[in-house]
């Protein structure tokens, strides 16, 4: 291991009265997940601001060739620190870290550099990772907490999936979003009581939640043009990252289809197995990964089956194990940096579900996406005639009009 410059650790004492700022990528998911931390006594605050100068702040503090997600996240955090809303001596930041071969693993260091540059070197930055990259005495995630977080991710995916399918068809404008808010509140409230995080109860909630969404959709035929969104995880999900892509698509009268967040988790887990299969390294990790993969898959399949049996008017969640196999003949399972093969797999999954129009979002100059995104479009189009894919670059200088114009081109072919 390379010796690292000392970083400020999040201590047990800090846990008492520090506010931890968390950037949001997926508002629903992250709120629910971090609620698990709140129930353990952490003070968490979400950054949902999307005001104009986030990009500018980002540009000021990180290298302008750095990927756009890092720039936005850091800009958002720096703006929050400078906003005067927080006591700067009682503040910590939380950021996720995957540790893969993509430069995204370096976000946390870029953030620390930015803090130092701005004179906030004393603010601790907590790395949320599952690879043992860093340790903070005041910040530990136990196995039960992990389980809970997992359920939250499933809740989030189910809600997002069904909401996306209701929104374009809702009869009373805004009712889908109101329902999402209502359920988010309800889960936040409920989950304070650990007993409500038992699987049995969670399963009951799945049904209740699904019933509510199904009531909005009713038996409306989902006949609008469907457009899939795939890509680099941050710009794919975050409205700040993709200039409100989903609302733009809704205003164009199409139904956006966004593969879920759990897929990305499963992808990360599965890569632990692949490392052993291909290179015979890290046996222990592979063993654990295999177990975890099966476990997650079972939970995922439960929701899928539930949707298929009880809510046939909705497109169910994909079976990840099937999605994974779709890449055969396109890209190797060893291509695991960034979104890697998952990106290709998701495009193929969408095509398989009849979603032939796909927007592949990526930060300008995203390395893995050169290969798994833009690099796979030709073979996908060749082997699946009629597929309509457009790659859209996002970065601080790109204007919405250029992006929208290209999406409109894709849509005019989709509708024709």
């Amino acid at each position, binding site marked *: 291991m390379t010796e690292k410059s000392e970083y400020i650790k999040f201590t047990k004492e800090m846990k008492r009265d520090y506010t931890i700022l968390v950037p949001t990528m997926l508002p629903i998911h992250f709120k629910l997940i971090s609620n698990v931390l709140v129930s353990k006594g952490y003070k968490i605050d979400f950054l949902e601001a999307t005001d104009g100068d986030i990009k500018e702040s980002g540009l000021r503090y990180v290298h302008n060739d750095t990927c756009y997600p890092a720039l936005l996240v850091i800009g958002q955090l720096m703006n929050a620190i400078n906003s005067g809303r927080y006591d700067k001596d009682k503040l910590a930041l939380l950021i996720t870290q995957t*540790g893969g*071969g993509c430069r995204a693993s370096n976000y946390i260091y870029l953030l620390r550099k930015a803090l130092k540059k701005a004179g906030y070197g004393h603010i601790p930055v907590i790395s949320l990772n599952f690879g043992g990259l860093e340790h903070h005495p005041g910040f530990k995630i136990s196995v039960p907490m992990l389980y809970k977080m997992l359920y939250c991710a499933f809740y989030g995916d189910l809600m997002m999936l069904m909401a996306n399918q209701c929104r374009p068809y809702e009869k009373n404008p805004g009712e889908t979003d109101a329902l999402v808010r209502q359920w988010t509140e309800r889960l936040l409230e409920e989950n304070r009581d650990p007993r409500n995080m038992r699987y049995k109860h969670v399963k009951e909630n799945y049904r209740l939640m699904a019933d509510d969404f199904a009531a909005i959709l009713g038996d409306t035929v989902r006949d609008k043009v469907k457009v899939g969104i795939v890509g680099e995880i941050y710009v794919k999900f975050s409205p700040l990252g993709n200039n409100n892509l989903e609302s733009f698509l809704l205003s164009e009268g199409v139904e956006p289809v966004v593969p879920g967040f759990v897929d990305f988790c499963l992808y990360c887990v599965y890569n632990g197995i692949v490392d052993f299969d291909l290179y015979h390294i890290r046996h222990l990790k592979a063993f654990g990964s295999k177990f975890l993969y099966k476990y997650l898959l079972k939970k995922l399949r439960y929701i899928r089956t539930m949707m298929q049996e009880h809510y046939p008017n909705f497109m169910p969640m994909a079976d990840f194990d099937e999605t994974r196999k779709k890449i055969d003949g396109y890209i190797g399972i060893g291509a695991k940096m960034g979104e890697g093969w998952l990106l290709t797999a998701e495009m193929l999954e969408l095509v398989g579900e009849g979603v032939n129009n796909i927007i592949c979002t990526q930060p300008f100059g995203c390395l893995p996406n050169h290969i798994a995104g833009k690099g796979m479009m030709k073979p996908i189009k060749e082997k699946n005639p009629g597929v309509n894919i457009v790659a859209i670059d996002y970065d601080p*200088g790109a204007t919405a009009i250029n992006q929208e114009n290209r999406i409109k081109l894709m849509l005019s072919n989709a509708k024709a």
Partner: protein
Amino acid sequence: MKIQDSKNRISDSMVIGIDIGSTTAKVVVIDKGEMVYSRYERHFSQVRRKTLEMIEAIADLLSGRSFTVAVSGSAGLGMADAAGLRFVQEVYATAECVRCLEPDADSVIELGGEDAKIIFFKGGLDERMNGSCAGGTGAFIDQMATLLGVSNTEMDELSLTHEQIYPIASRCGVFAKTDIQPLINQGATKADIAASIYQAVVNQTVAGLAQGRRIDGKVMFLGGPLYYCKGLRERFVETLKLDDEHAVFPEYALFAVAIGAALYSSDGREIDYEELTERLRISMKHRETISTLPPLFRDRTEYQAFTTRHAAHNVQTEYQGDYKGDAYIGIDCGSTTTKLVVMTDRCEIIYTYYSSNKGNPVSIVREQMNKIYDLFGKNLTIRGCAVTGYGEELIRTAFHIDYGLVETMAHYTAAKFFDKDVDFILDIGGQDIKCFKIRNNSIDSIMLNEACSSGCGSFIETFAKSMGYTVEEFARQGITSHAPVDLGTRCTVFMNSSVKQAQKDGASVQDISAGLSLSVVKNAIYKVIRATSPDELGQRIVVQGGTFMNDAVLRCFEKEIGREVVRPNIAGLMGAFGAALFAREHKKDISSVLNAEEVRNLRHESRSAVCKGCTNNCRLTVNLFNGKERLISGNQCEKGAGIRLSDDERLPNLYAFKRDLLEAYQPQKGRYKIGLPLALGMYELYPLWHTVFTQLGFEVVSSGFSTRKLYQKGQFSIPSDTACYPAKLMHGHIETLLDENVDAVFYPSLTYNINENKGDNHYNCPVVAYYSELLAGNMDSLSRTRFLYPYLNINSEKELTRGLYGCLSAHFEGIAPAAVRKAVREGVAEYKRHMGRIYAEGKRAVEFAKAHNKRVMILAGRPYHIDPEICHGIDKLATSLDFVVVSEDSITEDITPPVLNVLNQWTYHSRMYAAAKYATEHDDTQLVQLVSFGCGVDAVTTDEVRAILERYDKLYTQIKIDEITNLGAVRIRLRSLIGALEERGS
């Protein structure tokens, strides 16, 4: 003109199409299938008013009729929304038009102001637009014409008389500019440059848009540039090998989108003239919210205070009476402009000149020297003459100038004249931004703008012209702006689209001018200097360069950093003034500069040639003065200049050494031919794979070092144009191997690189690791052979054997596990020997430097940066500047990694950190980092390498390289580095 509508939609009605592009508006009216009206005008960003005017102009034609109408074009979207008119995406409209008018067309190429589009009709409809990197469009051609100082028409005419084509980067307008500049300065003819610019546009279209699909059959060419530029047409036809029958340049090329929109509208609601004009009027009122900024000046008094304050920093420039006595001449032959001053002993300026190069600096300087001799005659005793800038060598040789000095020194000398304690200089010129920090009376660090931080003066100039203003008038407009628009700060192309957005939203010229000024300033502060606070710049700031003569820019800068700065009244002449001051400091009895008669008789010819010194085939420009004195430029090494060095004189150069090592591996006859593409990760592991396959009885065919030709061979199958150049070269390497009829091509997928225990992990970057996946998916030609790209573990002989055996035995007969095991053992041993040779040569180079008292340069890149086509001879340039050149891997064998602020997880990059540490431990060693454009990983490493060096007070130099690199700029950088080192006394 008759419009054949196959669907018979418009046979008995009137349809109108309005197409609003980035610079022009087009209207067509089709009545009963007959195009009865068409009009094409520049809209000067007054999109909505212009549309209304154009419709009002045909009131007679429209009144009393009902018709359908649709709007198209990139700037038409906002207006269509505001006016409640139908909108159709322009590529879709084009396809609609072509389907009706030219049903047998196979493909369409349409170039617009800032967009480029391709439509393929046959074999599955495919419509494509350029992505967010929009080089090679109409705006690009406009900029290039400005650069050459000719109108678009003149450029077109010139191009038709060209004799040869120079390579010009086809991706990015900014890169193209850096390629053209040296050509201009080296005296290449304008005709050749003009044709080369068009060729660059063609290459961009073919490579960037077609992405693997061949453009053939009947091709339609549409849009303004293709309608007007015959030279561009010629380049397309020649490149695509089309005959007259298959290259169609229709009369309606300008109106295709408008016609398409009109056709598209036909199934919509009918409206009449009154309703249409009313709707357009409504759209003019409706101004969308755009993000704006506070005005530059609150009121007139604030502006006056500002101008008075800046008037204080003046030198005497008015020439009064007949000056008699000693004089010094300073010339700054810059990239776009030539500046010249004549100065007295008391530093008064008695003559100045500032003008565009117009592509021929020698004739401009000659003209000026003539003028000076005419004006002052024998009254002047010229005691010194100095020249600086891009054209330094050329002018110095032509006119026998006493001194040549590097630009940075010239600027510092001049700035010191205005503020002797200056600690920061910012120079924004037409084409480049230069910043120097001054510490202890010497230049401490130099920052230059790069490809994606390129907004400079010429950018404002081009915009001013496209909106119909002179630069001065445009600047005055900006000062009166009430709400400058926020245009973002990335590259000029992105700013173009921001302006487009602002135009769409109805921003005024004043607001756009002020917004552009601010963008240029922000670009300089946040992208080039990369400062977070004004204090990082310095306490005593001098700003200069022609762009700062624009008060709007100056004001924006002061406002942005919140500090008052010094702008000399000769801001645009500082380089020349500095040169004159230098000449004065080093005065002679009499200058060696050509006298009046010699200047009059100076004959200058230039011709181009190709160097035959080695396989690099550098394109040379040979300048001949008076038929005897020669100056050769364009060469990468001394050979081009006709100099022969003996072995003892040759400085160690690890880059050359490593190239020689690789070339020593020769193929042996074998049962099968296996091709190894010499690109990306193969550069380092070639000894390993060559040995393994030779041992297994294969004949190993290498694709050899890259050349420009090789690149072009594979260019058409590149799907992601923004990937780094080393990766894109891979396509050419594969094609080269296929031409050799190999039985298989081998480029393994290596997630993990060699583990040298220098970091937290030992990954390859995603591109090096998985580029083979992309090749397999995008290169159809690979189906002619077997493409082997197994995922392998190269850190364990056992695992490597297992993986290789699995892969090879599936494709070839007679592969035994034991043979593979033995081959792998030999291969790994050979790889270790290979690295050993590199370490040994590294030691020898360092010792040589000590013994001969030379400076050592670590040219820190990746193993594949030794490719002559990737590093463009920078290694040779460095040795010609008296550096011993070592590579990052040759000196870091036993260096433990330094303390880092980042995750150290890529093998190649770990070496770079270690090399930086090595540099901090050795006084005679400097580190220069090579960065390939588009390298995402280097966004992390560059900052960290700089931090390591600066912690120990070492200078950091970064050179960005791409398809083409301007060696002239690199030379200035390296000479500035030497200058700074000399001043520091190290």
